[in-house]
């Protein structure tokens, strides 16, 4: 009787260790695998050449990543500009000013928003935002456009990362000790001054890491952006021009990957660049959070 219990325990133990190994090894395998596949291209050109040249003509063997990287940066930057201030304001409102029932209602709303698949956001982008841009916003600036622009992508992206950042920001702001706020108020500060100078200041590292996480999420988002951004490989000069972010590059061209030499290496390199950029921002963000928790 006891033997079979011991046996069960041992089997479970081994299974758990095996699973743990899989999980730990995964990121390394991911990175190494992508690197190996990109080697072919990296043998021919240096990384610097690749990310600074602008010509993308796979059939002539030219792979310039610059337009795609710049598009990615533009879309991400604008998405953050749109999303971050709003997110911080909403998080402050929900944790400091709103009555408890408001937060209670907002939680499921935020959860549902974060569960909506990106292709649905893309459909919504095409249905609502594209016409909005082409019929109202662009003419306002005197520009003619089909609506498939960097700005469109940025708006859709902003909406996608808001629920994500909101959850983090709400968590961070909720950990403000009541005593700290009380101390500020008893020194004569108003509610608003307390928030500006005490609560937000204290949460600042957390806010920064929430932004960094939002950034990496935005940088890597593929389908929704792809559907509304125009997919034209130029270096955009203003947000009302179309763009072609890095993930879209990979997604759109996987079909031709195998037929043109080194094309697959190029796309794998794009994926590797994406992987590393996202990893770096995540690392910074998570390390900041760890430091934050240590200092408590």
């Amino acid at each position, binding site marked *: 009787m*006891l033997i079979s219990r011991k046996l069960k325990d041992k089997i479970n133990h081994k299974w758990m260790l095996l699973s743990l190994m899989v999980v730990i090894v995964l990121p390394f395998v991911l990175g190494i695998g992508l690197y190996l596949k990109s080697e072919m291209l990296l043998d021919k050109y240096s990384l610097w050449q690749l990310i600074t040249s602008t010509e993308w003509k796979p059939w002539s063997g030219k792979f310039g990543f610059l337009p795609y990287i710049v598009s990615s940066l533009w879309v991400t930057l604008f998405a953050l500009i749109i999303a971050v201030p709003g997110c911080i304001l909403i998080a402050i409102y929900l944790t400091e000013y709103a009555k408890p029932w408001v937060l209670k209602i907002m939680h499921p709303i935020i959860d549902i928003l974060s569960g909506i698949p990106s292709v649905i956001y893309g459909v919504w982008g095409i249905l609502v935002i594209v016409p909005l841009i082409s019929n109202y916003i662009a003419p306002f600036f005197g520009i003619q456009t089909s609506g498939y622009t960097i700005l469109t992508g940025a708006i859709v992206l902003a909406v996608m990362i808001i629920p994500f950042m909101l959850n983090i920001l709400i968590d961070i702001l909720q950990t403000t000790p009541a005593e700290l706020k009380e101390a500020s108020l008893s020194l004569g500060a108003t509610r608003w001054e307390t928030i500006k100078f005490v609560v937000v200041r204290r949460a600042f590292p957390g806010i920064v890491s929430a932004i960094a996480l939002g950034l990496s999420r935005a940088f890597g988002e593929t389908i929704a952006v792809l559907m509304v951004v125009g997919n034209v490989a130029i270096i955009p000069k203003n947000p009302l021009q179309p763009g072609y972010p890095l993930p879209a590059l990979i997604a759109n061209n996987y079909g031709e990957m195998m037929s043109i030499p080194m094309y697959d290496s190029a796309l794998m390199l794009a994926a590797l660049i994406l992987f590393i950029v996202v990893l770096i921002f995540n690392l910074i963000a998570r390390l900041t959070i760890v430091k934050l928790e240590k200092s408590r």
Partner: protein
Amino acid sequence: MMDNSQIEISNLQLSIGKQQILKDINISIPKNKITVILGPSGCGKTTLLKSLNRLTDLYSDVKVSGSIMIDGEDILNTKSDITLIRQKMGLLSQRPYPLPMNIYDNITYGLKIKGSHSKKELDEKVEHYLRQASLWDEVKTRLKDPASKLSIGQQQRLCLARGLAVDPEIILADEPTSALDPVSSQAIEEKFVELKEQYTIVMVTHILRQARRIADYVVFMYLGEVVEQGPAAEFFENPKMDRTKAYLKGLFN
């Protein structure tokens, strides 16, 4: 060292990280008596209790040396299966930790580990141990209700019944009434007095009056060391060490 001792602790040292929690502990715990471990908070009494069934193995960065002899076996350096050793001792914690199941399953959990499986046997034992814990009458009609529905006093008695069901020889109790109201506390104290005929009871408490009421043997600890130990009557009437006298002053005020 008495010869009717159930547990012999010799030269026990325990440290967590850089802090030494238990220093040079030498105690004999008598069989079939209630031994109370007394002391101010932070003196290490809970750690001492938990080292008796090696729950201290669960702490990070723990170093133990010395020996704890239970029925002739040194449980600190034994090759036997630790789960069997733990079944020799039942644990009652500061606050009740009922298992996330119904009342019936809470009791049969340990029984099934010990090998009972027939429904008839299990039913009988469930009733027997619930009666022992004075809980049977209150729950006999709702054995399949979730344990979470019981009041906190009932939950603690359930934990007692559950612990008794694995047929231990020793009951370890860590401030078992601190979360309970006075009526439930009294019920647990009376229960312990009844149970000592069958079991050896080791109880940690910081309530002097409680110790006075039910202890047969007392161990007084301070900052990780045993200051004084002895039969309860002697301890309370005639404390030998100054520190003990100072501590007991609170009792007589």
